[in-house]
């Protein structure tokens, strides 16, 4: 489950998972797993595609469902979208 806390860690390392593995504090390591990182990576990429209008309506619908199922609340979804747009 993606939380605001995990997104803060992801943002701290600008999405660089190897940076987190090398330089993450014990707290940053305890609150994150490889799989969380890759889930955020994938969602960021999908949100970016959607924001550029490159995806179908069905894709967008499924992505929104995935966001709801993957994030703990709406503020986390909004934060994830901000991160995705910032990477554009």
């Amino acid at each position, binding site marked *: 489950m993606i939380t605001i806390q995990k997104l803060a860690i992801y943002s*701290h390392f600008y999405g*660089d998972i*190897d*940076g987190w*593995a*090398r*330089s993450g*504090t014990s707290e940053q390591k305890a609150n994150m797993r*490889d799989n969380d990182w*890759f889930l955020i990576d994938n969602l960021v990429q999908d949100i970016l595609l959607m924001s550029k209008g490159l995806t179908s309506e069905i894709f967008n619908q499924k992505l929104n469902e995935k966001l709801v199922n993957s994030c703990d609340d709406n503020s986390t979804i909004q934060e994830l979208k901000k991160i995705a747009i910032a990477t554009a």
Partner: protein
Amino acid sequence: MRGENTTQGGRAIFKGKTKQGENGWRTWGTSSLVNGSLEFTAHAQKTVSREIVNTTASQVAKEVGKSSVDDLGRVFWAGGEHSMTAAMNFAKNNNMITMEMTTAGKNMQALTKGMPWEKAKPLWTNLSAEFAHGASGTAHVFHNGVTGINIQSVWGVTEYPILQSKGINIIYHVILP
């Protein structure tokens, strides 16, 4: 950096301490010259000024290319903690070494822990380049086969091009965590 030079048991030791940097970080460290090999222990609290970071990185980078690790096969990795752990286990079991297992790598981990990544990344990139330059013969690399690796990773941008330019034989290990 303020500090003092002393000798102790045949070691030339420099103990340095920085003032609080503008960005709120403070570092201190001890460098020892032992039989021509630089040992460096670094500590950091909050951010280090860019000047101090560069000094430290330079010292660490010199150390990582020294002879103590030259004879060991080098193991690289990319793709998160699973890859790093697999690479380290492989290295330990085969008398090889990853960058993080070197003294310099351990010191860099201590130095950059919690540091803003835009400051820490160039230090790691520099160290990775030194580590890759020191490779000879065959090198091993561990990648995450489930999720792949980022094209902008240190492996992709720094290490692989160096190994390729040196004609190093690269053996790929794909892990499926």
